[in-house]
C-alpha cells in the first residue's frame, strides 16, 4: 500500500485529489456554492471560538480547547460525509465539526458555560463531551482521555458491518493521541477486519507542549498506515477542498467494503492547547510567526472572491450574520440556569435495573 503525501502549506498541491495512488473514486467536485457554505461555517466557528475564549478570560467559561486553525480541516471532512448516515467519534477540539453537523452555537455555548439543556451530557461533562441524541446525529465523545475513541469507533464500525449497514464511522484524534497504544490497536483491528472507518488525524504539531520531533521519529503520521496495510493520506489541513477530497475518497473505500483509511490533515494550532495553557513557555515566537498568514479563513475568502462567488456585500453579510448569531446565543446561554442536582443519581444504571438509584 502506498502512502500519498502532499506537501502542507504548498498552494500548488492544495487541490490535488487525494488517494489517487489507490485509484479510488473521489467525491463529486465542489462548486462555488458548496465552498461558500463551508466558508460560512468556518467564519461562524471562528467568531464563536473567539467569543468562548473571551468568556474564559472573563471567568465565565471554565475551560476551552480552541479549534482556531483547525476549521478548514473540520469543515472539509464533514462536507465529504453524510450526517444522517455516518457516525462521528470526535475529540475535544471539534467546534467546527459540531457546527458543520448542525449543532447550534447556543447548544455549544450551553456546554461551555455548563448550563441546563446542554445537549451532550446535561453539563455533567466538559464542553463537547457526551453524546448527541442518536436520532438526530450519531456524535459521541465519551471522555477526555485521548485515543480511547479509536477502538470504540472500530467496534461501532464492526457492529455496522455485522448488521450489513452501509455507514462510515470517523474517529477523530490529534497528533498527541497518535502515540497512544490504543491508536495502534484500533488501526490494526480495523485493518484485519476491513472495517468502514476513517481515522482522521488533525496534526497541529503539538501534544500540549511537546513538539512533533519529540513525539515521533517520522515526518508524517500518515506513513504509519503502511504498518497496517491500509492507505495513509496526508493533506494540507488549511485547504478545505483537499481535505474534502481525501475524506471523500476514504468514505468511498469504506462504503465499498475496502476497509479503513488513515487521513492526516496537517494544521496549525493558533492558540495554546487550552485556556489553561501558556504556550509562550514552550513555543518559540518564530514558530508562530507567519502561521497566521496561512489562516484558512482569509485564504478561502480570497479564493471565493477570485472566482466571483463572493463580493464585499456578501462577505459583510456572512460576517455580521455570524456575529449576530453568536451575540444572541451568548445572551441566551448566559440567561440559562445551571442544572439543579435533582437528577444527580439518574442514569448511573438503566432505569429500574439493579443498582438504579433514580
Amino acid at each position, binding site marked *: 500500500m502506498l502512502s500519498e503525501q502532499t506537501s502542507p502549506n504548498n498552494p500548488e498541491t492544495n487541490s490535488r485529489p487525494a488517494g489517487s495512488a489507490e485509484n479510488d473514486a473521489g467525491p463529486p467536485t465542489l462548486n462555488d456554492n458548496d465552498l461558500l457554505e463551508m466558508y460560512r461555517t468556518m467564519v461562524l466557528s471562528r467568531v464563536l471560538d473567539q467569543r468562548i475564549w473571551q468568556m474564559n478570560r472573563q471567568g465565565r467559561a471554565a475551560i476551552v480547547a480552541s479549534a482556531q486553525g483547525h476549521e478548514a480541516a473540520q469543515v472539509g471532512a464533514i462536507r465529504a460525509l453524510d450526517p444522517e448516515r455516518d457516525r462521528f467519534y470526535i475529540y475535544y477540539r471539534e467546534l467546527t465539526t459540531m457546527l458543520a453537523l448542525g449543532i447550534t452555537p447556543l447548544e455549544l455555548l450551553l456546554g461551555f458555560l455548563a448550563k441546563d439543556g446542554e445537549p451532550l451530557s446535561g453539563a455533567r*461533562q466538559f464542553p463537547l463531551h457526551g453524546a448527541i441524541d442518536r436520532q438526530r446525529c450519531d456524535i*459521541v465523545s*465519551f471522555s477526555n482521555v485521548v485515543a*480511547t475513541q479509536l*477502538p470504540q469507533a472500530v467496534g461501532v464500525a464492526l457492529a455496522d458491518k455485522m448488521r450489513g449497514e452501509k455507514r462510515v464511522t470517523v474517529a477523530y484524534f490529534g497528533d498527541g493521541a497518535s502515540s497512544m497504544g490504543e491508536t495502534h490497536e484500533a488501526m490494526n*483491528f480495523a485493518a484485519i477486519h476491513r472495517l468502514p472507518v476513517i481515522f482522521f488525524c488533525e496534526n497541529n504539531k503539538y501534544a500540549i507542549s511537546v513538539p512533533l520531533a519529540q513525539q515521533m521519529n517520522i515526518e508524517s503520521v500518515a506513513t504509519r498506515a503502511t504498518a497496517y496495510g491500509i492507505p495513509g493520506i496526508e493533506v494540507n489541513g488549511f485547504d478545505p477542498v483537499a481535505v474534502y477530497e481525501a475524506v471523500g475518497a476514504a468514505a468511498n473505500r469504506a462504503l465499498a467494503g475496502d476497509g479503513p483509511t488513515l487521513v492526516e490533515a496537517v494544521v496549525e494550532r493558533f492558540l495554546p492547547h487550552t485556556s489553561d495553557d501558556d504556550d509562550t513557555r514552550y513555543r518559540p515566537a518564530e514558530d508562530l510567526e507567519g502561521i497566521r498568514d496561512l489562516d484558512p479563513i482569509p485564504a478561502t475568502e480570497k479564493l471565493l472572491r477570485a472566482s466571483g462567488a463572493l463580493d464585499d456585500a456578501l462577505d459583510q453579510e456572512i460576517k455580521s450574520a455570524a456575529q449576530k448569531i453568536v451575540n444572541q446565543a451568548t445572551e441566551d446561554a448566559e440567561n440559562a440556569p445551571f442544572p439543579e442536582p435533582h437528577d444527580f443519581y439518574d442514569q*448511573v444504571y*438503566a432505569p429500574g435495573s439493579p*443498582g438504579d438509584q433514580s
Partner: protein
Amino acid sequence: MAEMTVIEAVREALREEMERDPAVFTLGEDIGARGGVFLATEGLIEQFGAERVIDTPLAEASIGGVALGAAVNGMRPVAEIEFGDFIWPAVNQVIGEAARVRYGTQGRRSAPLVLRVPYGGGVRGGLFHSQSIEVAFAHQPGLKVIAPSTPYDAKGLLKSAVRDDDPVIFFEHKRTYRLVKGDVPNGDYTIPIGQADVKRAGSDMTVVSYGLVMHYCLEAAAALAEEGVDVEVVDLRTLRPLDTDTVLESVRKTSKAMVVHEDTKAIGIGGEIAAVIADEAFEDLDAPVKRVAGPEVPAMPFSPLLEAEFMPSAEKIATAMRELAAY
C-alpha cells in the same frame, strides 16, 4: 436437569444466548479454533462462525474498546479476557469509559457489554495467573460485577449479564471451572443480578463469601456442625450492586458475622461488608465482624507450599469460625 461443571455451564449460557439473540457475539484471545484457553467457547466457532466468535490480536485495550463500541452501537458483545491478570490494559476502556457512558451522556447511550474474566488462584498460576482483581471493578459505580460459585448460578447469571443494559464484569473462578459440579436445569432460566443466595441455612453465625472459597466455607460449616455450631453461609454472587438486605437479614438472625474472600484483606470487599453490618446492624451483633482473606503480599506465589500459605482453606476458615463461635 443435568449435572455439569462451571465451565460447561458458562459454555451453555453463551451458546443459548447466541442462539437466542443475533446481536450477541463473542471476542477474545484464542476463543475460536482453540475454544479458549479454558475451553469456555469450545464449539462455538463451528456453530456460529468466525464473524460471531472473533479471535482477536493479543491486545486487551482494543478487546475492551471494540466491545464497548459495538455495545454502544446496538450489539451485545461478550468479551473474554484470557486471564484476569491481563485485564489492566483494558481498564481504561472499562472503568474509565464503559462505566461512565450512561451517566456521561445522560442516558443517550448505554454500554451493554459483558467482560468474562477468569480469575483467582489455587491453580499453580503464580503471581501473574492467580490474581483476584474483582474489588477494583466492584468499586466503580456504573459497572455491575458478578462472581458466581456454582454451575447453576454461573449459567443463570451469565444469561442475565448478557441481557442487562449496563456493562457487566463477570468473574469466573478458574479453580471452580472443573472442580465444582452441580445440577443445572435444561434450557433457559436467569438469576437476577444483585441477589445473594443463602447456600446453607444456620442460626449461630453468618459467613459471607463468594467464588471458590465459598465452597471452603461450606466445608468448614459442615465440620462445625459436627461440633454443634450451626453456620449460615451467604453467597454474595453479585459484588455490585451488593445485596446488603440478605446479609443484614442473616446477621440479625445469627448475631455473629464473618466475611471470607481469597482477595487480600485490606481495603477489600470484607471491609465493605463489615462496615455495612456495623452501620445497619451494630446492635444485633454479639461479636466483632471477622475477616478471613488473602495475606498482604502483592500476589499469590507459585510454589505449592507458598501458594497454600496464601489461599484461604477450609481448615483456616474452620479455625476462624471456632474463634467467632467462642466469642
